[in-house]
């Protein structure tokens, strides 16, 4: 079983590296999708079918949206070489991250053996208290419903922002918006200076 996990993990890492390094944007989108699929299989074997289903479905939809909206764009590959300072600093920070992650993961409980008493409480009482035989749903929608409310609010705000930014029709009509000139105004459009106003008022009076 552990061999399967490591194979899938290495597959994920290789897929992400290809996704970053590929010149063609379609190829990199597809390899990002492959990484998501491998991750969902990993979740399934780890015993989390809820997460696996959500991962598969979200991956498919993200892949479709990305392909549909990026393929029509013009596809310029970056030919310039990268800065050596950027590579050096990212390597240093990645090394620091690895060191601190190794130190932090020493304190975690061993894989598959939770020591939290909260989780045990949920597993024992969830069916009687919430009535949902799927414990994950019982936690998400009953014990931790605030979390789900926050998630729904985040999606709602994101969709609202996307609709406002990407809408086709502006609020103003075309003729109205054309009246406002942008840039350096013409000489006739400038406000008159004081002496001009005085002379014009003198001539009229």
């Amino acid at each position, binding site marked *: 079983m552990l061999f399967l996990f490591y194979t899938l993990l290495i597959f994920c890492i290789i897929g992400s590296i290809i996704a970053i390094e590929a010149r063609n944007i379609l190829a990199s989108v597809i390899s990002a999708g492959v990484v998501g699929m491998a991750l969902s299989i990993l979740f399934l074997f780890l015993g989390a*079918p*809820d997460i696996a289903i959500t991962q598969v479905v979200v991956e498919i939809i993200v892949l479709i949206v990305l392909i549909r909206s990026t393929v029509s764009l013009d596809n310029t590959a970056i030919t310039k070489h990268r800065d050596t300072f950027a590579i050096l600093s990212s390597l240093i920070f990645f090394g620091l991250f690895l060191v601190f992650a190794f130190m932090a993961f020493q304190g975690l409980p061993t894989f598959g053996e939770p020591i939290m008493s909260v989780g045990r409480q949920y597993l024992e009482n969830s069916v009687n208290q919430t*009535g949902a035989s799927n414990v994950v749903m019982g936690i998400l929608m009953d014990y931790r419903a*605030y979390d789900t409310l926050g998630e729904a609010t985040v999606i709602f705000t994101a969709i609202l922002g996307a609709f406002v930014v990407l809408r086709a029709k502006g609020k103003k009509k075309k003729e109205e918006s054309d009246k406002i000139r942008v840039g350096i105004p013409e000489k006739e459009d400038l406000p008159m200076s004081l002496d001009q106003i005085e002379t014009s008022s003198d001539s009229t009076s």
Partner: protein
Amino acid sequence: MEGMTFIVKTTTKLLIGIIFLFGIYITFYGHLTPGGGFAGGIMLACGMILMTLAFGKRMSLGKLSDFYASLLDNLGAFTFWTIAMLGYIGGYFFMNFIEKSNPFGLLSSGTILTINIAIGVKVFASVFAVFMALTIFGRFVSGLISEDED
């Protein structure tokens, strides 16, 4: 002819009902089997997106226009909030105020089923709407710009 080839259209006609049925099943049985409102809603949106890709935007916007998608999105969020607020009749926010019956039944878990349905409707409408906004509204804008240049 709008959309894809005849083969894709026929396959879509055969598959679309099953996809919708499976999405509704995942949404309704989220408290009994793996799944839930989020996954089910995205499956429903996938069905609509498949319809858009196969038959073109006119057909799917005829089934569910962007205005009604936005309305359904708002309605789902409002229903979720209302269920949360209705918990106050029993005591506190997000209380499970519907009576629970024996486990492993469809109506066994009180408000969890209703919250799942609300989230499913909301996610379905919003993901379909954002797909439309990202793909089709962009085409409209580019069309407007090219018309202006002519």
